[in-house]
């Protein structure tokens, strides 16, 4: 097919056939992964999220994600949801710092219809004013008509009632100096209530370009039909010359320059605390795997160090829940420790966590082996369904920037030894490198 610029084949764990990556001449990528299932998963990943926002349009990526479902020339608002859900489809979308993705998981017999409607939505959204709803003053009178703008504001309110989200947002604001990752993906009520339709559409035109999109298909399908359908159905518009949005400066911050502690208050009975660390981008595969392993050793599962030492081996624990997590971001990984605790014991908790961080610089071989096994099992688990497989492939394509790294992950895992792990713990997870966000009960 003359529209194909390049084809790559990649080994992918737990799939019986190699995954194929097609790059079309317009830059649009298509990833095809065969997996036996009664359902098929179609997703398109756009390389944009809050990373491409500024202080004036923060939240536009997520708002646009909502508005993409509001109709095209061919299908009016609600038709996409109604038609595919009435065929047993599960549809939704998500926006994160580095990406926005849209997916359909549907019984395989409806593949053609789902692909047709998904492609139409991605390339021809109307984003109509009557669905967005009028702009209004969030501190003034209610808008005359409450539409999607108000739905997103309700989603912001929902987040304001979520304690962990409050702690995480406050942490983000102090971890980064300048990088757009410091902003909350969902934005603010003030911006969402006032951002005009033209600005939203300008954002769409700037970032929803073919070269910024990767479509992933996982399931039982005929490869030739899938390629032809994607080429036929993704009819990208030519917007000609326009004033493209230029993102804020994105200089990676891979270590917190000025670690800080912030304390906020809420009407709660217990304390919430989060430690945050920054690290190198995930294309440094060995380091990112090491941080996955350190997550397991420190805070995943009942036998993790934090759970054992702060809860299980304590007669009357003042820590009620504790865990660690690590997530990959294009411009640098982020490592978090979260603790829910007796609010009278804040200082003791900080002392305990700092002590665990000090101890993390020494790792036993059996801990490393356990963490490696965990990583392998996690990979197997994420390959069990078409939707989980599609999501992992999308993340590797978008955040890691290279699907081959998925194939290399398990091989490189075996190369990591305790010395390397200790070195990463020492350089990345030293207590002096952490910013801390705490939410305490109102006095």
């Amino acid at each position, binding site marked *: 097919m003359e529209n194909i610029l390049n084809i790559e084949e990649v080994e992918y764990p737990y799939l019986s056939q190699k995954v194929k990556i097609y790059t079309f001449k317009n830059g649009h990528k298509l990833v095809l992964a065969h997996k036996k299932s009664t359902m098929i998963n179609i997703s398109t990943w756009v390389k944009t999220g809050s990373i491409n926002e500024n202080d004036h349009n923060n939240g536009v990526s997520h708002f646009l994600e909502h508005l993409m479902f509001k109709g095209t020339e061919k299908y009016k608002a609600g038709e996409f949801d109604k038609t595919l*859900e009435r065929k047993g489809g599960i549809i939704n979308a998500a926006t994160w710092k580095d990406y926005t993705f849209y997916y359909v998981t549907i019984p395989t017999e409806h593949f053609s219809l789902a692909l047709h409607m998904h492609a139409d939505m991605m390339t021809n959204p109307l984003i109509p004013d009557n669905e967005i709803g009028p702009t209004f003053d969030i501190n003034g009178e209610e808008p005359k008509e409450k539409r999607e703008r108000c739905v997103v504001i309700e989603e912001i309110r929902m987040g304001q009632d979520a304690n962990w989200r409050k702690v995480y947002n406050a942490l983000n604001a102090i971890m980064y100096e300048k990088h757009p990752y410091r902003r909350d993906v969902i934005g603010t009520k003030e911006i969402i209530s006032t951002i005009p339709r033209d600005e939203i559409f300008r954002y769409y035109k700037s970032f929803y370009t073919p070269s910024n999109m990767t479509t992933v298909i996982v399931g039982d399908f005929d490869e030739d039909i899938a390629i032809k359908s994607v080429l036929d159905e993704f009819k990208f518009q030519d917007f000609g010359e326009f004033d493209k949005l230029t993102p804020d400066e994105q200089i990676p911050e891979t270590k917190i320059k000025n670690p800080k502690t912030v304390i906020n208050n809420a009407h709660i*009975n217990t304390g919430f605390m989060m430690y945050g660390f920054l690290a190198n981008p995930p294309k440094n595969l060995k380091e990112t795997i090491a941080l996955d392993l350190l997550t397991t050793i420190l805070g995943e599962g009942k036998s993790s160090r934090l759970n054992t030492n702060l809860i299980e081996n304590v007669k009357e624990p003042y820590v009620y829940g504790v865990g660690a997590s690590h997530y990959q971001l294009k411009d640098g990984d982020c490592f978090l420790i979260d603790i829910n605790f007796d609010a009278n014991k804040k200082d003791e908790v900080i002392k305990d966590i700092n002590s665990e961080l000090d101890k993390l610089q020494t790792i036993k071989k059996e801990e490393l082996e356990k963490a490696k096994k965990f990583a392998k099992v996690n990979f197997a688990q994420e390959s*069990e369904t078409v939707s989980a497989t599609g999501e992992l492939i999308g993340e590797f394509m978008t955040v890691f920037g290279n699907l081959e790294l998925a194939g290399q992950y398990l091989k490189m895992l075996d190369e990591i030894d305790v010395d390397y792990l200790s070195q990463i713990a020492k350089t990345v997870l030293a207590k002096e490198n952490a910013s801390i966000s705490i939410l305490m009960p109102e006095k």
Partner: protein
Amino acid sequence: MKFIEFNNTNIVYENIENTPRTAIYLYLSTEKQAKEGVHTMLGNLLLQGTKTKTAEEIATELENHGIEVTVDSRADFLKVSIICLDEDLEFALNSVNDFMLNSTFETLNKEIFKFKNETTASMDTPSAKASDAYYKELFKGHKYGITNTKILETIDNVTIEDVKNYQKELLTGRKIISVATGIKDEEKLFNLLTNSLSFMQKNDIEIKYNPAPKNKGNLIKIEKNDAKQAQIFQGWVVDGINTPDCAKLNVLNSLLGGAGLSSRLFVELRDKKGLAYTVRSSYKTLKDGAHFTLYIGTEPKNIKKSLNGFKTEIQRVIDEPPTDIELQGAKENFIGRYKYFYTQTNAQIASVNGWNYITGLDFSCNEKLLDEVMKVTKEDIIEAVKKYLLAEPTTVVLAPKEYLDF
């Protein structure tokens, strides 16, 4: 799917080709009602130490092999789930056998202490607090109404003897091993399962039902003065699985608010009125009944509008019944969601098969339900609304005090 009795043990087995992880779900139930909190404490204590191993040792040996073991105390049963790579199966089963037979329960006081604190901590989440109050009220007088905050009231009375006695009841109760795996050698697998888990030998226990009462609904208001959103739960106790109304209620749920982005509540209250990010209905079946619940999280000043919206949409099912296309869509949506949530992984499959047995259902009940769903008519839907949703509902509203005067 195959159901067999092997070495005096009931096993339900499903072979799923090319899957690296085996899922085994053990279901145990008893008709004897334990004192409040005992069932929960047994579940919490089973991984906390045996005659020969500490909690830390148990957790370490399982996690060293990447084996996921969870113990879940539900009102109708105790469920032990084991998910592991096939190569670790024997090790996992031996470990489970040990803690199921040799747990000492010596750390009961600590577990009570932890339970109290964890429950207090969970009530810091507004939706969890409202949900706890809702189920306590909806199922008042029935075991389904024993929520964590209800258990808190009497948890200090639970003793090690209570836990041990209740464990004995469970081990002599109704049991099933449900397995979904890529392992094809059935004989070898069944021998391994029954030899390693000898406590799962069957007892011929007749299942009894204690239907949840359809109490008259009440309105409960909960003050949370810094809440940015009101949390509203509204619902009814309705008939459950294996009743003629089950298929009708499932289709009604898809139509009203369980289908995702296109059901009526979503379109009317979210898309057209902008009242909420989350609005939905759910129909949840349990052994002794079921509930049909509506939920919305909304700006506190929208409480009345949201409650009226619920009422309007319920009435509209009668006044503007679904068209043939809408009805067919609701049915297919139910079937698609069923496939997605219950048939995609070994864990989902093992869980569903085991649940069917322990709640006294036929293994073909899911297929039958899907057939019955396809036969539901618009008259059936209207009848279900009239029968259940026009009754006075149980409603819980959590919001700042100034918004609770409605």
